[in-house]
Structures are given as structure tokens and as C-alpha cells.
């Protein structure tokens, strides 16, 4: 038997649940369809949850209610080679004051919490439901069908928040039929159990404070980087690789992760911990140029499905953009219901709101960042240059000193080439 709703959201991640929440609060009868046993069961990420302006507007007490971990007061960047590392960290008093700048979270908890908030507002959550196809009636989008279930879910509008591969956007003809591996990254992560006191002592944290660190030079020449961040009583350690680079490298993600965890400085950070869970996920890293058509007749695309991810090399944003796009998609659907117009034109408010919001503005601003990051020197030569130069500065062994700027240029010339140094500096300046 088919069930009729006013809107169907495919995927109960940050984009989908945000959309469902907004629509349910406006009184629409919304189905939030999730393939996991519970929302968040299939989700992982390797980073920090940043401010969510759209959800903070919906819940003034958002940060008191959400299922969060430690708030990040200390952020670091490490340039790493086989046995050396050079780290800079920023720890700021402002990062220790509310509203906090970022949190570590567990997706199976956070995503589930957000979906349950949508349910409290009146959305119908349907779990264990993998969407098979879009259903069309009289030439119009009319709903979705579910793998292994008879009957359809019907609604005049579908929001595709079904994640990075978005088969819904593909079926609707909104995304590129074949992905370019150069626009995708894969992240792998190990969750390592560790007593809370050990984490606090080791990383210099008190109360609920957390630490997040990015690494470059830890991927054996594959374009990518590493991360480590603290949860209450575990560490999340992982690597992210550009898929085009990983594919031709012949190296495997798990061997590289293993080597990363055995690098002497990293091994000390995680020693005494116990491996609990291994996970992997794709990241749409193509930036602005990868964004599909956001609106079609009867359909909107949000979150990872719309490739809304901002990777500049220093920050990696996704959940904030997903949630914002979900809220804006929800608003467009509310308007479409008021006007009884579910055509592409009737839903065009979504595109307009997206263009006015920081989501598309930021992605447009950093449009060149993905190209800048496709530079092998960032992942090999520069980390080596940083480590060897710093090692020289601090080595005092009776050998006569050299002028430091001359020495830097000399080692840069050896490792990178001065022309490349200039070109890379220019490219980074233009991209960021």
C-alpha cells in the first residue's frame, strides 16, 4: 500500500534532518527516509563540527541540547616525514568560551539526535529503507520506491539528501552520470579507546576541552592528509586521500593508515589506546565546480548529494553546509506548497537562498582551492623542507652557522625548486 506525504526527504543525515525539521515545524506532513537501522548508522566524518547558524536559529539553545563531544580549544597543523614532525598549534581563550567554535562528535549519536528532533516536530522517520527509484505519475515526479518493499511513498516533492553518491540526483538527471576521481576523496578512520584522564594529560586538556590536529606529509606521497582529534574517551585518527592519486599510487588506505599510526610521533600519541572501530567514507572535494543542478521539477538536492563541501587544505567544512542547505531546501518546499507549484520554477527559491547564503558564496570564493591542492609537492617536498629546516635551526653541534634565509632558499632550491616555490605560493595566494 502506498502512503501519501507532502514531502519526502531521502537520507536522515544533517541535510535531510534539517530539511525535515523545518518543513515539519511549518506543519507539512514529511517522510524522512533512512537506509540505516537508525540515522547516523552509516555515517562517519573526520573532523570538527563547526557553528551551525541555520540550526542555531531554529533552536536558540542548540548547543545545550545537541549530542556533542569535547569543544575544540586547540588546533594544530603538523608537517610530517618518516620520523620527524614540525607542528604549530593555536590554543585560544576565545575557543574556550561559548559559543564554542567547534566540537568533536560521533555521527551515529549526533545524526540520530537531529533526526529525532525532526520527529518531535512531527516528521515521520522511516528507517531501514533504501530508496530504489523515483516514481513518476502522469509525467510528474510523484514519490519514491523502496528496495525490497511493496508500495510506494508518494509526495509531490522529493529532497535528495542521500549522500555523496546521490543516486536520486542521478536518476533525476541532476548530477553528472560519472564521477571524476579527481573530484573525490576517501577518508579512513580508526577509533581508538583511551581513558579520559590519559587524553587530558597527554594533550593538555581540562574539563570538556578538546584538541584537533591536521597532518600533511603522512600519506607516502599520495595527495591527502591526516587528522587526529580527541573525543571524551577515545581518539579519532585517520587519513584522507584524493581518489585519483590513490588509484594510481597502488597503495592501500589501510596500509597507509597503519604506517601513519606507526610513525614514531603519532605512535606516542595513540599508545595505550585500543582500536575500537574502522570506518571509511567518500568526500566530494571538487568544490564549486562539482555542484550539480540543485533544483529540478519536483526535486531539490542538498548536502553531500549536492557536493557541498569546502576543503581549503586548512579547514574541511561539510556538515554546516549540509545543514544550511537542508534548511533552505525546506523553506523552498514550504513556499512551493503555499503556491501549489512544484515545478523547477516553483522551487527556484532554493537556488536563490543558496546563492545568498555563505554556502555558495564560500564555495565560489574558494573555487580554485581544489586545483591548488592537486599539487604533489604539498604532500612530499614541503613537509620535508619544513622538518629539515627546523631541525637545522635547532641543531647546535659546533658546526659553523649559515645565514638562515640563505639556507632556507638553498634547501628550498634543492627540495622544491625556486620556480615551483614561487608558483605554489602564487597559486595558494590566489586560491585562498
Amino acid at each position, binding site marked *: 500500500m502506498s502512503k501519501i506525504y507532502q514531502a519526502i526527504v531521502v537520507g536522515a543525515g544533517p541535510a535531510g534532518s534539517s530539511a525535515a525539521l523545518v518543513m515539519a515545524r511549518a506543519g507539512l506532513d514529511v517522510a524522512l527516509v533512512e537506509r540505516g537501522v537508525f540515522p547516523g548508522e552509516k555515517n562517519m566524518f573526520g573532523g570538527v563540527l563547526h557553528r551551525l547558524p541555520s540550526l542555531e536559529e531554529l533552536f536558540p539553545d542548540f548547543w545545550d541540547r545537541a549530542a556533542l563531544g569535547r569543544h575544540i580549544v586547540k588546533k594544530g597543523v603538523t608537517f610530517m616525514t618518516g620520523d620527524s614532525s614540525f607542528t604549530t598549534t593555536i590554543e585560544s581563550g576565545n575557543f574556550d568560551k561559548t559559543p564554542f567554535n567547534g566540537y568533536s562528535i*560521533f555521527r551515529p549519536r549526533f545524526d540520530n539526535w537531529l533526526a529525532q528532533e525532526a520527529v518531535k516536530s512531527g516528521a515521520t522517520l522511516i528507517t531501514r529503507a533504501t530508496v530504489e527509484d523515483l516514481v513518476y505519475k502522469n509525467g510528474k515526479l510523484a514519490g519514491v520506491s523502496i528496495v525490497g518493499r511493496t508500495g510506494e511513498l508518494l509526495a509531490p516533492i522529493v529532497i535528495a539528501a542521500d549522500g555523496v553518491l546521490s543516486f536520486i540526483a542521478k536518476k533525476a538527471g541532476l548530477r553528472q552520470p560519472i564521477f571524476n576521481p579527481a573530484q573525490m576523496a*576517501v577518508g579512513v578512520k580508526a577509533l581508538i579507546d583511551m581513558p579520559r584522564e590519559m587524553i587530558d594529560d597527554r594533550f593538555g586538556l581540562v574539563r570538556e576541552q578538546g584538541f584537533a590536529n591536521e597532518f600533511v606529509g603522512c600519506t607516502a606521497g599520495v595527495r591527502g592528509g591526516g587528522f587526529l582529534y580527541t573525543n571524551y574517551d577515545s581518539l579519532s585518527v585517520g587519513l584522507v586521500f584524493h581518489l585519483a592519486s590513490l588509484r594510481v599510487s597502488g597503495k592501500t588506505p589501510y596500509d597507509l593508515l597503519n604506517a601513519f599510526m606507526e610513525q614514531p610521533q603519532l605512535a606516542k600519541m595513540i599508545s595505550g589506546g585500543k582500536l575500537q572501530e574502522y570506518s571509511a567514507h567518500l568526500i566530494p572535494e571538487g568544490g564549486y565546480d562539482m555542484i550539480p543542478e540543485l533544483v529540478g521539477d519536483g526535486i531539490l538536492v542538498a548536502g553531500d548529494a549536492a557536493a557541498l563541501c569546502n576543503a581549503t587544505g586548512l579547514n574541511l567544512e561539510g556538515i554546516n553546509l549540509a545543514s544550511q542547505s537542508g534548511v533552505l531546501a525546506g523553506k523552498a518546499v514550504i513556499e512551493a506548497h503555499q503556491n501549489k507549484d512544484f515545478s523547477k520554477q516553483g522551487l527556484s527559491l532554493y537556488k536563490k537562498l543558496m546563492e545568498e547564503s555563505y554556502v555558495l558564496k564560500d564555495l565560489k570564493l574558494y573555487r580554485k582551492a581544489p586545483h591548488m591542492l592537486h599539487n604533489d609537492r604539498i604532500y612530499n617536498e614541503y613537509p620535508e623542507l619544513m622538518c629539515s629546516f627546523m631541525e637545522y635551526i635547532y641543531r647546535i653541534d659546533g658546526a659553523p652557522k649559515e645565514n638562515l634565509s640563505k639556507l632556507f632558499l638553498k634547501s628550498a632550491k634543492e627540495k622544491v625548486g625556486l620556480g615551483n616555490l614561487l608558483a605554489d605560493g602564487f597559486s595558494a595566494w590566489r586560491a585562498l
Partner: protein
Amino acid sequence: MNIDEIFDNTSFTIDREPHIVVNYEICTGCDNRGCVNSCPARCYTWSDEDQKMTFVHDGCLECGTCYVVCHRDAFTRWRYPRGGFGVAYRMT
């Protein structure tokens, strides 16, 4: 760390019916086979001796890496597992 240990820690509810079906004939003629090294879950194995690909869906993390790196479209089927099946993350 023992690599095998990595895979043993993740939970799955395995569906008997695979959500990914590979046409091995296409793999035999492939000049790249980036799936073998790129898959984070070690689901693809290439045998040089038999000139044959083997795919096992049991430990699939549903990340989509193979779907993106395969430039020969060797998939007879590529969809997510039926609702309630597949990988089950607890704290990631």
C-alpha cells in the same frame, strides 16, 4: 598494529544478496584495476595467476570508492544494501 585487526572491529549485518555485483570479464580486460588497492575494505582481489577478479561484499563499508575509481563501469549492480543491512557504525 595487525592490519587484519582493523577489519575485525567493525560491525556488519550481512545480507545474503550482494548489493554490488561485478562483471569479472570486464575486470580481466581492465588496464587499471584501481579498485583493488583503493578499496578501504579489501573487498577486491586480483589473481595474476588466474587472471581473475574476486569481489566479496561482506566487509564492504559502503563508501563508494570502487564506484568512482572504476572507469570501465564493471558493475552489473551498484546500490546500497537493503535497509537494515550492511555496515553498522557505532561511534565514528
